[in-house]
């Protein structure tokens, strides 16, 4: 039994706090009526997920999670909310009263199924590790084994940027009547 006041015990306490942050962020992200609050909940949830990655021995991916999700994706969604300006009062009146309970049942079913599957499987630990999974090893495999995928995802990102620019420009009322 590890003592609470040792370094390991404090690290476990921090881990439980990270899990609480993740769950709280997810609940805010899915349940708040205003979308801007949902985005802040999503950012909170992603900060917790970055902490989970840190406990999984990969600080590099934790840093990337903070940089890409918290720093880029959440800010982009916040900009879209500012541009689209949704009205929260309008949505509440037209909602089916059964929708909340039904969606809760569907989500709980998925959670139960996946966690039962995870609990019942006998996971086999590997006999040996090829490397230590450090940042150096990640860089080596990205430029040797996975170099093709690395190039392809840069192509995908380029096409996505050009496509979103084209989409946002053609809908802007350029050359036709402004409403």
């Amino acid at each position, binding site marked *: 039994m590890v003592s609470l006041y040792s370094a390991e*015990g404090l*690290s*476990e306490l921090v*881990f439980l706090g990270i899990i609480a942050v*993740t769950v709280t962020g997810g609940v805010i*992200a*899915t349940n708040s009526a205003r*979308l801007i609050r949902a985005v802040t909940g*999503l950012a909170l*949830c992603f900060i917790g*997920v970055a902490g*989970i990655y840190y406990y*999984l*021995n*990969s600080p590099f*991916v934790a840093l*990337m999670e903070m940089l*890409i999700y918290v720093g*880029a994706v959440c800010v*982009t*969604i916040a900009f879209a*909310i500012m*541009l*689209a300006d*949704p009205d929260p009062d*309008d*949505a509440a009146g*037209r909602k089916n009263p059964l*929708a*909340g309970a039904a*969606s*809760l049942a*569907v*989500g709980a*079913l*998925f*959670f139960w199924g*996946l*966690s039962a599957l*995870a609990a019942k499987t006998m*996971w086999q*630990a*590997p*006999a040996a590790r090829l*490397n*230590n*999974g450090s940042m150096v*090893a*990640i860089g080596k*495999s990205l430029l040797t084994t996975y170099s093709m995928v690395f190039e392809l995802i840069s192509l*995908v*990102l380029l*096409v*996505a940027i050009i*496509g*979103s620019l084209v*989409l*946002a420009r*053609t*809908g802007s009322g350029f050359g036709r009547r402004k409403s």
Partner: protein
Amino acid sequence: MSIMTISNSLDIYLLMAALLFGMGIYGIVQRQTFIGMLIAAELILSGASINFMAFNRFLAPDPTVGQIFTLFIMGIAAAEAAIALSIIIVVYRNYRSIETVDVVELNG
């Protein structure tokens, strides 16, 4: 398994991943607006990423594979968010709304 060694077991990570996945499914079904559904989809993607990272930490013989897969999931998610948000903005300009009930005439 004591509560004090919880961060070194595979099960808690798989449980967290399943919880995030279930929350994402719940959000996608329950939300009325496109942006809310996009937020829930990001939750589903991060649940999948946690699964990959947990298997990478505990089960994989080569512990770089899961990290690289997670990095690629992040890249795909960023591209998906950019495309989806620009589509949402175009829909908002044409319909003055981002709620799913207002654009039902787009279905087949």
